[in-house]
């Protein structure tokens, strides 16, 4: 059978972060409840960072690692996002330009809340499997930011939503999908998908979010059980406990994943609490390491968790990883693939951990200033030059080239590379 999967995978977790414990104290959240949520840091988009700049910064090291010939074989660039700044134009056009890709390339954008990255990945996988253009590659860029505060107003949609602020991050995942799955070889046909209409969380207005976090958790758990059950129908003998060395989850926050995994283990195997805890540490926790540092980056979070496993797991032999993706509204999927011992070394050349370590740590005052400044680039802005003097040290501190937003001129976004 044709092999297919992720040839290269990279994460860009932004240029600045906030310690969420500090944020929780500042916002007066109940600390006893907060500790169980297993959050540590969240990446924060600066006013001159947007989904295009984050996405390009995730993809650039991948493009730089390709030969000119290989680069020219990228025939689709799919942007997966819920944070776009234009209802019509796809961000893929900007990314193609700044990455210098071939113009004989399909450029489009996918929206389906946090499921978008998986939708893009599966689209790329199916294009390669179809063999309509043998040897072609697909660049999938999942990129999301949460810039502004929660939609104002009361009612069920904002109740308990205060926990969304500490969990919401900013960042992007870039996946090069091809017939050379050096990093993650997809198990072809091993897909359980499940979706239905539910009003859990959404972005019904520009620059803001609304949601019923309780309903979202219930829907997430329904989908995990149902999509895994569909996966089992298609993969006879698949076993949640035995078939996967690691599990990558869409991770709104760590505590939710711990609850979801506990539910599956208890329901399917009646596993006792301490055995579940041990299993969680071994098979699930490696996927939370990056998620705990970047926060929820929506469409890119499942890929972030997968990258976290490849970066932090033990790969002395080929290992199968089960992946669960969930997007509000809702659509979900359980799928799997295999990581080889050499995959880890391949991905580590991008230095994801090191780059996360290099981010600037914001004080609370600086964080508040970022929120205030971000209003200058809100949705629908026609002309603006973001204040590049604002926290200018952050622009120059990381030691590798990054793309930043330079100007919005008659709605057209212009970017610049900063070394």
């Amino acid at each position, binding site marked *: 059978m044709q092999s297919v999967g992720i040839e290269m995978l990279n994460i860009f977790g932004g240029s600045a972060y906030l310690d969420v414990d500090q944020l929780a104290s500042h916002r007066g959240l109940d600390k006893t409840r907060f500790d169980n949520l297993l959050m540590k840091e969240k990446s924060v988009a600066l006013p001159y960072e947007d989904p295009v700049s984050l996405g390009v910064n995730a993809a650039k090291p991948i493009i730089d690692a390709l030969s000119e010939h290989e680069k020219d074989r990228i025939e689709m660039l799919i942007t997966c996002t819920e944070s776009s700044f234009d209802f019509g134009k796809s961000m893929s056009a900007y990314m193609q330009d700044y990455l210098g890709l071939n113009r004989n390339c399909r450029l489009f954008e996918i929206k389906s809340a946090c499921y978008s990255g998986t939708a893009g990945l599966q689209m790329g996988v199916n294009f390669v499997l179809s063999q309509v253009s043998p040897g072609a590659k697909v660049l999938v860029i999942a990129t999301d930011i949460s810039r502004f505060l929660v939609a104002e107003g009361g009612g069920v949609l904002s109740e308990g939503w205060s926990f969304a602020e500490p969990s919401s991050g900013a960042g992007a995942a870039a996946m090069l999908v091809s017939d050379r799955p050096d990093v993650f070889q997809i198990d072809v046909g091993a897909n359980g998908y499940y979706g239905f209409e539910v009003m859990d969380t959404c972005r019904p207005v520009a620059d803001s979010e609304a949601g019923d976090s309780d*309903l979202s958790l219930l829907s997430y758990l329904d989908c995990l059980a149902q999509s895994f059950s569909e996966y089992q129908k298609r993969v006879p003998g698949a076993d949640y406990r035995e078939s996967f060395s690691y599990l990558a989850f869409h991770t709104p926050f760590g*505590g939710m994943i711990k*609850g979801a995994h506990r539910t599956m283990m208890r329901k399917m195997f009646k596993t006792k609490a301490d055995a579940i805890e041990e299993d969680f540490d071994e098979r699930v926790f490696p996927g939370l390491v990056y998620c705990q540092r970047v926060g929820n980056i929506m469409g890119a979070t499942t890929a972030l968790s997968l990258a976290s496993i490849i970066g932090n797991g033990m790969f002395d032999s080929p290992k199968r990883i089960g992946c669960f993706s969930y997007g509000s509204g809702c659509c979900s999927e359980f799928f799997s693939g295999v990581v080889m011992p050499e995959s880890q070394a391949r991905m580590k050349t991008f230095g994801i951990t090191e780059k996360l370590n290099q981010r600037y740590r914001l004080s609370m005052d600086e964080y508040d200033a970022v929120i205030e400044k971000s209003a200058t680039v809100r949705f629908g802005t026609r002309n603006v030059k973001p204040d590049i003097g604002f926290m200018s040290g952050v622009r120059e501190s990381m030691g590798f080239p990054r793309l930043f937003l330079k100007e919005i001129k008659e709605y057209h976004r212009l970017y610049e590379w900063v070394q």
Partner: protein
Amino acid sequence: MNTGESVLEKINVFSVVKNAITEVLPDVDSESVDIEQNLKSLGANSIDRTEIVMLSMEKLDIKLPLVSFGGVENIKEMVDVLVDAFDGNS
């Protein structure tokens, strides 16, 4: 319906729910749980609340999508959803 049978059913379901509450929240004294209370006031976070729902369904041998419990405000409303499912099953 407010027949004697369904009142009895409701009392039984409530006692199953109380057991599930004490299983998930060992510090709660089941005698002190009032049906008008909400689970948050007993110290349950959203994951605890979901577990209480799931344990209750398991014990009552009821299979409902978890989203059926979206918007439930207190223990009484949760019991109502379970009793409705129970009536539908039997």
